[in-house]
């Protein structure tokens, strides 16, 4: 039995807390994984079935449009002889370097534009403008500036991704709840400290959305770049596509495309998972909706 007023108050508060918090519900990790995986697996199976049906319909001869089995065989062969590993590693290295550069530039530009009113007026709409520009339109300029080199590809990849990342950060900073900024000021966070402790963390979900979009732009620009800018001794994935087309190697072409699609999906899933996790940590989604 509580003896003092303070103890009684503590006990009453604890009782109220226990009543107000819903009892924890939750399912096992395996179950969650399964419920996330089966719709995707079913959709993939349906797509393959549709593809096979088109092949069987005889719409195009098999040397132009091979079936899933032939492509899978080719994929296995490419994987076994190391071609695929080499091409993927070259392409992914470029993607990583280009994306990393884009993150640095995009975050820097986003910070300045979100923070400085003059910069907002000057380059705010330019960022959106560059975002809507098709990346392929940059290539003639990139090739003039950097010739047929890796720099030309990276130039376009960065221009594709950085505006999306900057945009994400800017819109995140624009939508920080004023109450939180005020709460930060009351706690003594002004100027740069307010930025560091309130605005930037509050913008993280939007920044992650920008990173996801930036990645999609980077990946597209990279593929376009590798098709246009072929560098000797660097058999990238885009290079494989080009060779396959020239040799009219339809199974090889489709196998390469499958790899491109696969990488795109895997990375997008990683970003989506990170975004969802951050949004949940920020209390922006109801737990049972995720």
């Amino acid at each position, binding site marked *: 039995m509580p003896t003092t007023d303070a103890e009684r*108050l503590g006990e009453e508060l604890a009782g109220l807390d226990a009543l107000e918090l819903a009892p924890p519900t939750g399912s096992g990790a395996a179950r969650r994984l399964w419920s996330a995986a089966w719709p995707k697996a079913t959709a993939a199976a349906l797509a393959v079935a549709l593809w096979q049906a088109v092949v069987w319909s005889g719409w195009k001869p098999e040397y132009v449009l091979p079936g899933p089995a032939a492509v899978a065989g080719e994929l296995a062969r490419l994987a076994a002889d190391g071609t695929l590993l080499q091409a993927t590693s070259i392409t992914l290295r470029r993607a990583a370097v280009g994306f990393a550069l884009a993150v640095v530039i995009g975050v820097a530009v986003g910070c300045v534009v979100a923070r400085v009113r003059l910069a907002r007026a000057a380059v705010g709409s330019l960022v959106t403008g560059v975002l809507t520009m098709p990346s392929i339109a940059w290539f003639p300029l990139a090739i003039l500036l950097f010739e047929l080199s890796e720099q030309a590809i990276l130039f376009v990849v960065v221009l594709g991704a950085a505006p999306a990342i900057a945009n994400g950060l800017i819109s995140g900073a624009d939508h920080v709840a004023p109450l939180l900024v005020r709460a930060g000021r009351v706690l003594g966070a002004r100027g740069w400290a307010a930025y560091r402790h309130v605005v930037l963390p509050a913008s993280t979900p939007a920044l992650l959305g920008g990173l996801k979009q930036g990645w999609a732009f980077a990946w597209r620009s990279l593929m376009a770049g590798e098709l246009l800018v072929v560098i000797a001794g660097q058999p990238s994935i885009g290079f494989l596509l080009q060779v396959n087309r020239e040799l009219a190697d339809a199974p090889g072409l489709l196998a390469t495309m499958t790899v491109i699609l696969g990488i795109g999906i895997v990375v997008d899933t990683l970003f989506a998972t990170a975004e969802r996790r951050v949004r949940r940590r920020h209390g922006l989604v109801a737990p049972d909706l995720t």
Partner: protein
Amino acid sequence: MTPAPRPTVAPVVAGPAVAVRAPAGPEPSDAAFVLAGVTKVHGRGRDAVVALEGIDLTAGRGALVCVVGASGCGKTTLLHLLAGLDHPTRGRVATSSRAALMFQEAALFPWLTVARNVELALRLRGVVRRERRERARALLRMVHLEGFAAKRPHELSGGMRQRAALARALAQDADLLLMDEPFGALDAMTRDLLHDELESLWRDRALTVVFVTHNVREAARLADRVVVLSSRPGRVVADLPVTIERPRRIESPEVGELAAEVTDLLRAEVRRHAHD
């Protein structure tokens, strides 16, 4: 001037608004804050709104002042002036120490755990890292949230969030706690417990509290002084000392009687605006 002893149970009986002192020189050591002839106008030209006009208000250290008023009485402006978030158009605002401000919403940072929210407040006032964790834990224990340190704000109930916000405000080590309708969004049961909680913290930590509310019963339950503001512009229309003995209950007849008295004042004030 000798500092007045801090009241423990018996409430301070406040006098009428104190006369303006010479602006130079330090404030007397027993005043927690002084508002002298404070007028605040929001906007300018035709859109100008006089939020506060000619406010003279001061409170000794350790006072628990409740400010009540109808809508548009500039209660929030008053707190912002005291917190230093805003400056008066005319007049003088002086506070003897740093003020901590609490809002109707807890305004906790949703990306930080409850403990980290408190630690951030400590960090922003320069407490070194190794001390922060221990002090945050002590503050959370004080508001009976020690078991929820690792939770995020959205995982807590409204009342728990306000207690966490209270712990964060106390982390600023301010002697002056400004509260802007902090319990307005809570159910009666929770609010009742939080009144007890606030009262014991106020007593134990020698705080000066300015508590803005539109709930007159709440004001009568908590205050040792109720300040009634008029609306548009906000002026002090009454400054009532509360001598009801503590511990008080919100249901008690004395509290009800005082609440009725304050309500009558507010109603008269509202009637004045019927033909605006």
